[in-house]
């Protein structure tokens, strides 16, 4: 196992320990298909917040690369999934799936780094019942110290940078771990390993 495989392995282990679902895909396009499928599968589940019914078929993807947007719309249409890229705020009671593209991964905590200056980027990762992050496996580093240069650059001007390690959780009642408090009920990380199907 080379070093890159090693950190990916550790990342996967720690992300799973933090209750994230980790899968791999050969391309971002595959990751998009995964998210659409997830949204279609979950659309029938009752929302966790009253009034959330209207967002059950919504997939919010505010940062989809332009070249993949038509594919996303198409795939959504085929599965009965509505795709939005802005005004996530109009769905305060939740959307079914939020889709983000992670900037970096940190192996020893199973963390994804996500720059989200835009309000919609943030809200897609907060108001979605299921948050899906596509993360190029090549961006994974061993520890947070290895991400310092990147973070330092991100903090050079106005920026909201998030470390995301699992979904929203609490142990505030009797110290019993419960997933899904105010944010996503679950987090799916799709590791993109280019060239591998």
């Amino acid at each position, binding site marked *: 196992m080379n070093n890159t495989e090693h950190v990916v392995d550790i990342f996967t282990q720690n992300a799973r320990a933090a209750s994230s679902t980790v899968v791999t895909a050969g391309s971002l396009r595959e990751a998009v298909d995964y998210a659409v499928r997830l949204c279609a599968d979950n659309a029938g589940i009752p929302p966790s917040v009253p009034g959330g019914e209207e967002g059950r078929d919504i997939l919010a993807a505010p940062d989809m690369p332009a070249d993949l947007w038509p594919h996303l719309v198409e795939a959504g249409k085929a599965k009965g999934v509505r795709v939005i890229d802005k005004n996530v705020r109009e769905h305060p*009671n939740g959307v079914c799936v939020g889709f983000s593209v992670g900037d970096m991964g940190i192996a*020893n905590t199973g963390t994804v780094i996500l720059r989200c200056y*835009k309000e919609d980027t943030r809200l897609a990762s907060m108001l979605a019942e299921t948050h899906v992050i596509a993360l190029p496996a090549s961006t994974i580093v061993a520890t*947070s110290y290895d991400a310092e240069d990147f973070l330092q650059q991100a903090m050079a001007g106005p*920026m909201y940078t998030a470390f995301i390690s699992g979904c*929203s959780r609490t*142990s505030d009642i009797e*110290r019993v771990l*419960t997933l899904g408090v105010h944010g996503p009920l679950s987090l799916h990380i799709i590791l993109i390993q280019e060239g591998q199907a």
Partner: protein
Amino acid sequence: MNTNTGTLREYRKSIQEALDDEYLRKTLDTFAVDYHASRIAAFKTMDEKEVIREIAEAKDSAISRMDELYTQFKEKAEANGVMVHRADTAEEANAIICAIAAENACKKIIKSKSMTAEETLLNPALLEKGIEVVETDLGEWIIQLRHESPTHMVLPAIHLSRNQVADVFSQTTGKKEEADISTLVKVARRELREKFATADMGISGANFAIADTGTIGICTNEGNGRLVTTLPRVQVAITGLDKLVPTLHDALRIIRVLSRNATGQNITSYVSWITGATECRLDPDERKIMHIVFVDNGRTQLAADPACKDALHCVRCGACANVCPVYRLVGGHKMGYIYIGAIGLILTYFFHGADKAKNLILNCINCGACKEVCAAGIDLPAIIQEIRCRLNESQGSPLPAKLLGMVLKDRKRFHTLLKFAKWVQKPVTAGTPFVRHLPSIFDVGQNSRALPAIVDDAFRDRWPYLCHEYTEGSRLVGLFAGCALDFLYPEQLEAALTLMHRKDCRIVFPFEQSCCGLPVQMMGQRTAAVATAKANIDAFENTGCEYVVTLCASCGSHIKHTYPLLLADDPEYSAKAESFVGRIKDFSSFAVDVLDYGEKDFAVGDDKIRDGVCYHCACHLCRGLGVTQQPRALMRAAGDYQQTAEEDTCCGFGGTYSVEFPEISSQILIKKLDRLEASGARYLVTDCPGCVMQLRGGEEKRGRKLVVQHMAEFLVARLNTKQAKE
């Protein structure tokens, strides 16, 4: 708000109520045990001591230049569109935030967790202005609905059961909510979502304020912090000046330890790094209206206070409460004002004043467990003792402390009194403090342990008759007795004499040695503590001994850690203290490291005592002196040592503490003995006469299931008598 600020009697009464709360007791007990295991697992792959040392060093440097970091932060953040404020007092901080609300016509506020906002009592200040404030962290929301303060910095509602949460939720929603935890969490999700969506202002705290980039860092698990900082059009962060760090690296370093130390979690689900005002689509400029309020409220003054400034290293992980044997029994409402645990006792004094701290500051048993786990390496017990001194110096000492202080300044008077007490042995002296270090003799109201009496002949009275037996040997050893051994357990010292002499030691016992001074230190009597330190240093000054051996871990730990501090500024004694401290050695380490005691020295075959032996690791030995291996090696060599759970948890003695808070002390003892008896061992060994007193006294009441021995007694009874003296 809690009720810890009345008289000491009222405080003790309220403690009894907490002790009677069975749910609380059980919850905190399970938590203490679970926490211990998860912390070990969380640090498995990290040199935690090294990271903690780095954190302490970096924090120390940061608090020495808070002003400079503040200026730098302000410049950076303002360049990125944030308005930065500095409030000298809690009231000023609240006024600034109320003004921001008024200026922006904010009527509804949502908050994520902030201890600083708790400290400034921000919520009542906002409510007074007619503004709705809703806490969104689940635990904080629960206690807000119950009109309570947090009982833990990380788990604010740890004192409540699911039934109590269901009750308060039912009152809030107006319908019966089921007492099922995942259902209750969903109630919070449901009820609070509307609050998030309609709030005009979001208030958060900040775990870090990075000066270099003007960034704040917020660690949360629930995701509420992210919604609070994103949805409303106005964003306010409130934080202490002590949260300023120079660089991102400093913050990342703290994150490595913070949640691992708090709950055993690798990292919180979310860490949000907010640099400047970010996009908000509700605003005409599509930028957030963002303010950051830095609170001083005593921090600048504390930073300039050499004896206590380390309290500002705190990263608010709450671990000092997690491991505290007192917290484990009484919970946060009795162990803090707003901040809780050991750091709470300290910050209450500095942020909220002497009056709020005067009772709390007494409620530390000085077991050192907090210091051992502190994420920022703070010597919490030492700062607590310093505050006791200051309170006594500013407000006058309570009579018992004053009397003990007076008596201990004069060794002859002290020893005369102890001998006098031998004849009295009863309540004439009850309430006078010198007996409080030997509380067993006179104390009343302690039903969980029997009390030893002062012996007819103290060790110092026997010594003139014994000394001639110990004048031969190649190694000269000084014996530091300490009061408890000298006046209660001279036979333990004699056992040690036998063991040392067997290994070619000759022994000196300087007669002018006195109490080590720990009891007066614990009671905040600084001048008496200094006087006893000097007397003991003088007593051993010209003896020429290579080692000064003590059988009392508390004396040893006090001498080692506190003498250098007490005498640091004394031109005559600072060097002498260092030399004395360098020679101090606890008996178990001395027996193994110097005298090379091992299996060969103890009875074998039919002569070997086969009954199991369990161990109580004295706080001041394992944490105070860092000795863990040698006693266990000795027990394995001389007997059948059986390891038990929580060997290093306090026995509840704590010297003067067991007299000040007998209810707590005896509850800790009961739990300790329950665990030890369950091992099925016949012998219980420890390295401190205070622990012997506590444990033996407890066993006396419980029918002597365990034979409690000092290590020296234990070893001497198991010597291989067939083997010639070396």
